């Protein structure tokens, strides 16, 4: 045995790996530099290979030594600029470096591997140019003998005044080792090697500490002792900090994964005769090592896909007026406590028509469904099992692994994938990953008397169906149980049954019982889990299940609860697979049953709630930022104003019964706060009891209940519901907030005239009122045709058009399209109003030339858009817009 000291051998392997880690990137850089050789860079590679060679020779690793030696020879010449690196040469070198890594990874058997092919190729390169310096070869040969081999390559650099080699005779022993140390030193400072076993142990301890804390918190809550509370608060904090610190030790830069992509792309594009280059950003973003390990393969697959299916052949790119070299951008960044990775290519994009046709062919979707599908949904088809977009499956990216596997793998680690593609311009895939897998927020539920945890990332919402509504909202469609939820049908899975618990039928026997439903999502696929009880949310430590339980696809692991009991963690995609929920069925199922008569008109998504007994109110969902549930005692009253202390600031609250004609709020322990933004502030509206969120399409009566703060009323399910005007309500409660604006308005011009096309009388009047309130003259039209007639008439005097989308005779798209294609009118700004801002509408709007898209009820934004556009198109001339008109999100 040439290497009988295993410790030394292990040390060699670790060190060599460190040396080899960067070589690939460096070689690629050398290739990119071409004839313009960066001597320092070549030197760096040279030294790395040289160290490996020396140590290998010393340890009797002959194959490693031979290969490193041949590689070193070529690098030596390159350093002396005797060889100009080009693709074929670097190719050979890269392959040799790969082989070297392979040898080192299997060091025990490395002496049995045949490396002569690589050595021969390298020697050829070496010899081709060394004809005129034959002497060089001999001393280099010597260098293979033992470690201080550095003596040998000095004869070569002699010609080049490399800084460190002024005198060959004296320097050799120190020169080659010193620079090696130099490169290694900063690494030692910036990171330390920690055994994974130690880290895992630390992690376990932190986990236990978390459990201990949970236990303590639980007992404190039950006994109510003040001192205990302080202790637990402290413990809570310490635990969290310790947890964070330990997590930090496991964090690795995502660049570790990214770094291999330049090579992957280079090799693949060469094979496909395409030209691509890779741009990488955010390689320093750190994620847990488990995630680094898990993300490698899916990322590689997607990058390969981008090269293979995304980037077009150079000729085609030129025809399309693109740079013949395609760009693939990898970008990692933090977003909302998670890590995002974007993989963008500027290739051909996904041809959704072809995709749909193929999906129909394969029976994944029906023809009808394909016709209705939005572009976005169609692009998502690539994630369906058994789908591959390339016309012929190449051996490169279509190696039996589809995008569906990629998606599943990413979801397995708690991430999600999104895809966006524009035909002709490129595709962007966006991956969202958790920072760590070890501790996750989750919701505890009960089913069949047992407790389970559901990861929060999978939960969309919690729905409680009251006993009285069960029969109405839960029904059987095509043999499957579904829940009616806001106009769609959501497939339901009874957890008891999915998990084969005895007595699973009990619930079925009581059709009137209330149901707790956890709406979960895995990928784009949603369904509802019927559970017995929903307990509480808790941060849980994920523990793996033993080998005997690997077959339990419904479970993603287990955790230990505060009371020491074990609770399995549910795997929502596993449950979906087990219960055979089919995704495409769900997509086609739309609830047509009880809303048909309402479907004719425009649809609004409304939050319905009651405040006083039997008094119903509604607020458009589009205006709501979020909804909070609070205890009554959290509300402070300061100078007659109700406030909620919240996230370090105080949120002003509006009480309906003080602002409009309404009964006073029902006495309850908890209320909901509907948070919205107005005048750049956050305001909360108190709602005693939330009823539902529904998409409705009904006529709004703008007269009967009209008062400042109430926009109008609708009748739904034989109940009269008053639609609140949040702007007016806020105005009434806090007139001083708007005072400033009033003053500025006084200076505002009244000479701008706006054409308003809107078929609903209610909205037309509403919009006209607030536009006139802002000082504009308004010409209102009942539909697009009237509007067009006015515009095409002589001397229309219009400065801006605001149009609804859905109108009889001529809709908003057509009106806009006419305006924008008319030479006289094309300079007229157009704001489109919609009640539901769908992506599809926005896209169509942008196509026909809509300047801005706004939601009907959002008075502030509509006005700010109007001002912005008037300024932009120079319609205001000397006049200035109120400073309060913020140029915020055009596409909300």
């Amino acid at each position: 045995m040439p290497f009988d000291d295993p410790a030394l051998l292990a040390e060699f392997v670790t060190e060599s790996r460190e040396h080899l880690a960067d070589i690939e990137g460096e070689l690629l850089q050398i290739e990119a530099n071409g004839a313009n050789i960066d001597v320092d860079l070549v030197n760096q590679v040279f030294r790395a290979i040289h160290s490996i060679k020396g140590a290998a020779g010393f340890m009797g690793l002959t194959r490693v030594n031979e290969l490193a030696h041949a590689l070193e020879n070529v690098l030596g010449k390159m350093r002396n600029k005797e060889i100009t690196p080009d693709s074929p040469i670097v190719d050979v070198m890269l392959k040799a470096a790969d082989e070297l890594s392979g040898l080192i990874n299997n060091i025990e058997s490395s002496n049995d591997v045949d490396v002569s092919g690589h050595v021969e190729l390298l020697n050829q390169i070496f010899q081709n140019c060394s004809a005129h310096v034959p002497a060089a070869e001999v001393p280099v040969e010597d260098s293979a003998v033992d470690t201080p081999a550095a003596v040998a390559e000095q004869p070569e650099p002699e010609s080049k005044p490399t800084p460190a080699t002024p005198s060959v005779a004296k320097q050799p022993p120190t020169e080659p080792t010193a620079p090696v140390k130099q490169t290694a030193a900063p690494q030692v400072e910036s990171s330390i090697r920690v055994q994974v076993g130690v880290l895992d142990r630390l992690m376990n301890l932190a986990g236990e500490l978390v459990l201990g804390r949970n236990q303590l918190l639980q007992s404190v809550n039950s006994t109510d002792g003040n001192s205990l509370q302080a202790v637990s608060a402290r413990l809570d904090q310490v635990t969290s900090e310790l947890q964070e610190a330990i997590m930090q030790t496991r964090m690795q830069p995502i660049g570790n994964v990214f770094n291999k992509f330049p090579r992957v792309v280079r090799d693949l594009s060469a094979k496909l005769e395409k030209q691509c280059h890779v741009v990488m950003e955010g390689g320093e973003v750190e994620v847990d090592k488990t995630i680094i390990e898990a993300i490698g393969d899916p990322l590689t697959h997607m990058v390969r896909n981008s090269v293979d299916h995304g980037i077009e052949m150079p000729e085609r790119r030129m025809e399309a007026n693109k740079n013949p070299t395609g760009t693939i951008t990898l970008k990692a960044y933090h977003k909302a406590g998670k890590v995002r990775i974007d993989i963008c290519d500027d290739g051909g994009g996904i041809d959704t028509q072809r995709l749909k046709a193929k999906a129909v062919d394969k029976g994944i979707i029906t023809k009808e469904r394909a016709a209705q599908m939005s572009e976005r949904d169609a692009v998502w088809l690539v994630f369906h099992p058994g789908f591959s977009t390339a016309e012929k499956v190449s051996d490169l990216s279509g190696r039996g692994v589809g995008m569906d596997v990629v998606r599943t793998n990413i979801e397995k680690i708690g991430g999600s994938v999104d895809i966006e593609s524009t035909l002709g311009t490129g595709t962007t895939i966006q991956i969202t990953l958790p920072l760590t897998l070890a501790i996750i927020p989750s919701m505890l539920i009960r089913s069949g008397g047992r407790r389970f945890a559901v990861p929060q990332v999978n939960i969309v919402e919690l729905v409680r169906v009251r006993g009285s509504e069960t029969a109405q909202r839960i029904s059987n469609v095509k043999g499957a149980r579904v829940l009616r939820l806001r106009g769609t049908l959501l497939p339901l899975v009874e957890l008891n049954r999915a998990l084969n618990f005895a007595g699973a039928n009990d619930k079925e026997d009581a059709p009137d019982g209330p149901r707790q439903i956890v709406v979960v999502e895995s990928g784009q696929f949603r369904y509802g889990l019927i559970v017995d009880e929903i307990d509480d949310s808790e941060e849980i430590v994920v523990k793996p299940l033993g080998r005997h339980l690997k077959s339990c696809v419904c479970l993603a692991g287990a955790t230990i609860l505060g009371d020491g009991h074990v609770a399995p963690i549910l795997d929502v995609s596993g449950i979906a697979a087990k219960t055979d929920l089919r995704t495409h069925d769900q997509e086609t199922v739309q609830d047509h049953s009880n809303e048909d008569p309402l479907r004719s008109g425009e649809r609004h998504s409304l939050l319905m709630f009651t405040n006083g007994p039997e008094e119903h109110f509604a607020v458009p969902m589009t205006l709501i930022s979020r909804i909070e549930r609070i205890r009554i005692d959290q509300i402070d009253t300061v100078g007659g104003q109700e406030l909620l202390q919240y996230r370090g600031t105080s949120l002003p609250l509006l009480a309906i019964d003080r602002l409009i004609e309404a009964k006073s709020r029902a006495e309850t322990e908890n209320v909901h706060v509907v948070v919205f933004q107005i005048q750049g502030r956050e305001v909360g509206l108190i709602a005693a009891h939330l009823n539902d969120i529904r998409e409705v399409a009904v006529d709004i009566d703008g007269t009967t209940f009209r008062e400042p703060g109430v926009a109008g009323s609708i009748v739904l399910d034989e109940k009269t519901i008053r639609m609140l005007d949040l702007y007016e309500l806020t105005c009434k409660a806090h007139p001083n907030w708007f005072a400033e604006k009033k003053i500025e308005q006084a200076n505002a011009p009244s000479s701008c005239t706006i054409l308003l096309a809107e078929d609903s009388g209610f909205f037309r009047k509403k919009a006209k009122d607030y536009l006139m309130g802002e000082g504009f003259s308004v010409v209102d039209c009942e539909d697009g045709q009237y509007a067009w007639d006015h515009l095409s008439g002589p001397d229309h005097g219009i400065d801006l058009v605001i149009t609804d989308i859905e109108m009889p005779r001529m809709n908003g798209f057509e009106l806009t399209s006419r305006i924008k294609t008319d030479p006289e009118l094309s300079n007229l700004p157009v704001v489109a109003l919609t009640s539901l801002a769908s992506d599809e509408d926005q896209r169509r709007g942008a196509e026909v030339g809509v300047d801005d898209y706004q939601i009907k009820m959002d008075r502030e934004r509509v006005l700010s858009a109007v001002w912005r556009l008037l300024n932009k198109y120079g319609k205001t001339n000397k006049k200035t817009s109120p400073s309060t008109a913020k140029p915020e999100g055009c596409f909300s």
Partner: protein
Amino acid sequence: MSASGTITKSTGTDLQLATFYVGELLLSLPIEFVQEINRNLELTEVPHAPEHVRGVINLRGDVATVIDLRRILGFDPAVVSSHSRNLIVRAGDESIGLWVDRIADIISISSDSISPSPANVSGADGRFFKGVYRTESEIVVILDVDEVLSVE
């Protein structure tokens, strides 16, 4: 891990066996396999688990699978009694509990005195046994842990 290695290597030296009952059968394991014995019987059932898995327990912060030895050996499932115990063995990087009906003594024997196990012991499949040892009154069957744990 290899149980066979331990037994054959210790030829001539004394071998310590932890013995326990599963049903009427007196089984044993070389003591070095036994990590601990506990009364932690608060099992959490695992849905869709194989029949011979009784559930999982909290073993000081780790989730350990508990195997019903009776099921593995082809008997009726075990019943909980005041004598029931979990015998925790270390298998690779995980700890696994074996549910046994009663713990008996630790005996020291010479490994020479182990005889090959018959194809069938009291109706249990012989493949789970490494050999038998006869005391004056009883037969102690030496369990093959690897074989037991390899049942899927």
